[in-house]
């Protein structure tokens, strides 16, 4: 027996918890929510066992599948794969989910719909686990959509707030644009793959050993369409607009969405189908460019935001850009490494932000300040998270960012510099965030107090991970990448990369300290000189407005125009036909007595006459 055989149980526990909680409903009370937490704990333990088994290196990769749907000679399968990559993802997802679960007992304790909340979280976790385990693209697509809908439910959890309603709707619709791409890619693969296979191992074989079976143009198209799905899910430009708005959900959910579920799905998808991308240079370049652009683009917006969660949201968009950049320059291991470390420190930052919001009841960093004095644990752990995100050694983010920048330098030097500038911006906006919230004097009215232990405990665990997780792969010890991808990574020690990335990060932190803590540099140094730039950044480059102008309004206009067309032209023609028929009817009215029997008889006679006429035609 191996643990891998029972991997299907990992998502099943949360599903069971979801079923129980949703059936119990609102009346179940706060204690029922522990069912969800228990399920995530069991899943976590099982995932750890599976990962431990993979680490020991004694068992083979495991696959099990069955026929979900058989149509003639075509069969659609469902199944799961246990590989190093999937077992890593299992651990990340269940660990973050478990910690978020714990934290939510504190954060959501006064919400009357707390059982519903935990039910949704359980389903969300289960869907992500299913996605991770899927052994073929169709199963993955199914869970992919379920992840999307769970995220929608949780973003809109406080459904009475109009902002939450709008954000939930936006999250669902915008990511669905990407989903369409994935769906069409799925259709293409089904009809172009030999044997209509959709499983990842067949895809791997076809695109590596049997290159040329699928024409180059089609390969590029498939890769780009898959990437479109990833762009939607992982909040890459230009479909990033939903992710910052998704901050309307409860903060633990933001942590879950931004760390382990949902946004990670896009990166995971590209990593899982990476052979298709490798077969197309155009697709690789697109991924790298979109990733690099998103990284720097989102970082600049993050500089000008004042909502603590929105700053973190844009930082997620930016960091996901890094991961895409890594994939685009061919380094799956660097992307997965950053996904791995980012999961911990981003979950940490969001939960820390939640702890602050819980205490001061505002999300505007201009109304905070001096919070660190009363919230020591939150301040320390948040600080660790911020340093990790800023790429200061020896925290986790440094090592993974270094891996990405090294890969970029080797393949796309221009993108390396984009990444370096982004690293500077990242350090700057995180320093701004940290100092404005935790340093200085209180600016708001509420008195901050530390959160209960059930909320700080997850913070401490994540802080520890944010310190140590990076050591699984350093320039001196490339173990992680080989384990995850199965390929020996290129020698990637580059003194220049380390020097540049440390220098820009330190510079960013230092500048932030000068501006926002010490006050030596005036805050309006930029806004007073180029007011237009700050306005553009505050308005997020007007991308939302652009969409409203080129998509939403025209669609509404088209709809209204068609409504008029439908009412007066399509229906009108029939009305006219009907009126002329009515005129004919009046002529006929004299023949009619108004009795139902009479009509029936006439109709019957008519029918018989027609039948006889046609049947007997040849004899007349």
């Amino acid at each position, binding site marked *: 027996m191996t643990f891998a055989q029972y991997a299907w149980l990992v998502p099943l526990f949360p599903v069971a918890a979801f079923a129980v909680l949703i059936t119990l409903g609102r009346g179940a009370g706060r204690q029922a929510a522990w069912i969800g937490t228990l399920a995530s704990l069991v899943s976590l333990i099982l995932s750890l066992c599976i990962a431990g088994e993979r680490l020991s290196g004694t068992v083979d990769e495991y696959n099990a599948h069955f026929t979900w749907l058989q149509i003639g000679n075509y069969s659609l399968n469902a199944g799961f794969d246990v590989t190093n990559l999937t077992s890593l993802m299992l651990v990340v997802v269940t660990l973050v989910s478990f910690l978020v679960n714990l934290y939510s007992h504190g954060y959501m304790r006064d919400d009357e719909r707390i059982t519903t909340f935990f039910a949704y979280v359980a389903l969300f976790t289960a869907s992500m686990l299913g996605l991770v385990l899927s052994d073929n693209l169709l199963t993955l697509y199914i869970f992919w959509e379920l992840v999307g809908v769970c995220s929608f439910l949780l973003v809109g959890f406080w459904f009475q707030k109009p902002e939450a309603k709008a954000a939930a709707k936006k999250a669902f619709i915008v990511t669905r644009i990407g989903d369409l791409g994935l769906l069409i890619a799925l259709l293409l693969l089904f009809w172009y793959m030999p044997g209509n296979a959709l499983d990842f191992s067949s895809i791997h074989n076809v695109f590596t050993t049997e290159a040329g079976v699928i024409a180059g143009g089609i390969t590029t198209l498939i890769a780009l369409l898959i990437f479109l799905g990833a762009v939607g899910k992982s909040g890459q430009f230009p479909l990033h607009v939903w992710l910052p708005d998704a901050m309307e959900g409860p903060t633990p959910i933001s942590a879950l969405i931004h760390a382990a579920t949902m946004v990670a799905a896009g990166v995971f998808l590209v990593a899982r189908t990476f052979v298709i991308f490798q077969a197309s240079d155009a697709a690789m370049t697109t991924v790298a460019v979109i990733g690099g652009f998103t990284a720097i683009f989102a970082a600049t917006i993050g500089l000008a935001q004042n909502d603590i969660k929105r700053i973190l949201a844009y930082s997620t968009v930016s960091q996901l850009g890094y991961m895409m950049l890594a994939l685009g320059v061919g380094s799956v291991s660097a992307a997965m490494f950053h996904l791995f470390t980012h999961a911990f420190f981003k979950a940490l930052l969001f939960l820390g932000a939640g702890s602050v919001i819980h205490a001061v009841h505002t999300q505007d960093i201009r109304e905070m300040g001096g919070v660190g004095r009363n919230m020591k644990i939150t301040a320390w752990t948040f600080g660790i998270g911020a340093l990790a995100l800023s790429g200061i050694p020896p925290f986790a983010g440094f090592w993974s960012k270094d891996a990405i920048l090294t890969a970029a330098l080797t393949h796309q030097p221009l993108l390396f510099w984009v990444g370096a500038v982004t690293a500077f911006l990242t350090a700057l906006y995180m320093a701004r965030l940290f100092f404005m919230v935790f340093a200085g004097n209180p600016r708001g009215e509420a008195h901050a107090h530390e959160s209960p232990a059930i909320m700080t405990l997850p913070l401490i665990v994540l802080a520890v991970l944010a310190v140590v997780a990076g050591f699984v792969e350093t320039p001196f010890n490339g173990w992680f990448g080989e384990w995850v991808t199965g390929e020996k990574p290129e020698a990637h020690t580059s003194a220049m990369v380390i020097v540049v990335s440390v220098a820009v990060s330190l510079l960013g932190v230092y500048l932030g300290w000068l501006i926002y803590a010490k006050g030596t540099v005036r805050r309006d140094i930029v806004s007073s000189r180029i007011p237009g730039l700050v306005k553009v950044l505050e308005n997020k480059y007007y991308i939302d407005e652009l969409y409203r102008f080129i998509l939403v309004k025209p669609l509404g206009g088209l709809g209204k125009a068609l409504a008029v067309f439908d009412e007066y032209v399509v229906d009108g023609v*029939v009305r006219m036909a009907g009126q002329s028929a009515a005129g004919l009817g009046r002529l006929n009215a004299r023949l009619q007595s108004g009795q139902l029997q009479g009509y029936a008889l006439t109709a019957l006679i008519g029918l018989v006459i027609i039948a006889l006429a046609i049947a007997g035609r040849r004899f007349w």
Partner: protein
Amino acid sequence: MLENIPVLSCILLAPLVGALLVLLLPKQQGSWHRVTALVFSVIPLVLTLWLFASYQTATGGAPYTEHFTWLSIPLSRDLGQDISSMLVNFDYHLSIDGISLPLLLLTSVVSVMAAIASVHVRKRWKMYYALFLLLETGMYGVFLARDLVLFFIFFELTLIPMFFLIGVWGYFAREKAANRFLVYNGLGSAAMLLAFLILIATAGFTAVQGTDGVQIAYSGSYDVLLNNIADPNAYANMDPSQTGDAGLHLSEGLKNWAFVLLLIAFGIKIPIFPFHTWMLRVHTEAPPPVVMIHSGVLLKMGVYGLIRFAAFLLPAQLEDWSTTLAVLGVINILYGAVLACVQKEFKLVLAYSSVSHMGIVLLGIASLNEIGLQGAIYQSVSHGLISALLFLIVGTLYERTGTTQIDELGGLAKSMPFLSGILLTAGMASLGLPGLSGFVGEFLSFLGLFGSMKWLTAIGVLGVLLAAVYVLRSVLGITFGPIPDRWTDIKDARFVEAVPMIALTALIVLLGVFPSVMTDMMQQGFNGLLEQIQQRAGG
């Protein structure tokens, strides 16, 4: 146990018996009528469930088939010397196969749910339930009949009760809606009758050499037509110069005409753009339980008719017209979806969404392969369940609020968490969320069509995105946001309302998770058609 009784006739006639019984019951006893209607709707449900469970794909519908001559009209004019008899035969022929059985099951499920949902009907119960049961018999007949004339009669039989159910029990503009319903469907019936007569007069002709001469018969039997059209030696396929009678020849032109007429006849029912405006009015004006039947089952009669007669009898024409059909399907999808995005009345959103979803069915049919064809039937069944559920919710909602204008509602998840949860689930099913039945039907239809027409599929897939827009816009408009004061005290669904909702939701989930419960039998139903299409492709 049930082998020796005519199950199909029992299914067909049980509601009719119920209708007669309702008419005999005293007028004042509303609950008696309701219980009778329910009982006589449950009987077919039990029987179809039994059929579903015992159906063997190897033997098909043969063990259940009931076939005898119903009407035999002798034509005795001028019999030639070799001709011993000349008859027009109309058969009472009922059968099932993998295509009709899922739809039969859909009919029985939706009928029972609609019968339960009729609890809100407040006037003239007796007449209501009698017509309701009559409508059921008509629907069962449509899916069971294997004789063109019998089919036509049942098809017409559904019109009469529907006309009255809309016109008497509907909302404000009910009479107008009923009239519009009748005008359009009357037109469709005329086209269907003409097409059927063309087919019967040509392909329905058989001549058998008997001892005292040739026995000539015209038959409306589906099997006879199917065989005669497929058989190159049948009179219908012979050149007039061989038979000396142009009247019997089912020429390519005539086939084409028959196909177009059938497309119009069933296209009105489905409905295909631009024939859809009548069903918008039915959706808004008819009482919700009747819309459950209408949107859930009656539209699918169009799909069934198109597949059963147009596709199976005239596969060559289906192939010729498949691109047109796919274009029409794409128009339906996008036109319906865009219009659903701007409606203010929830019932109209659902009506246009039906137009859009039925477009997906057309894509499935146009694909000409087994994946798409199964997708078409699957989508029909799935849409039937989903729209029945949605109109069940509409009925429950209207009962409390007196309005289904999206602007006037809002925040109902606060006061009606259960109903809102079901509405959200139904909405998700409607926009094709995996795990619910809508996804399977859509996915198979798209997958099938993609094999033959890639660009059209890619355009049609946009409908999935628009579905997310209109579903979320309307469903969230009703359930999310701040709740207006006047709706804070309304009560959630009662037990009697909740039971059918849960049942339908459970079925939607079941079909979404285990599609093979239906696809295996459907496969067998399409085998014959696929062979014909492949033969043509090969030859």
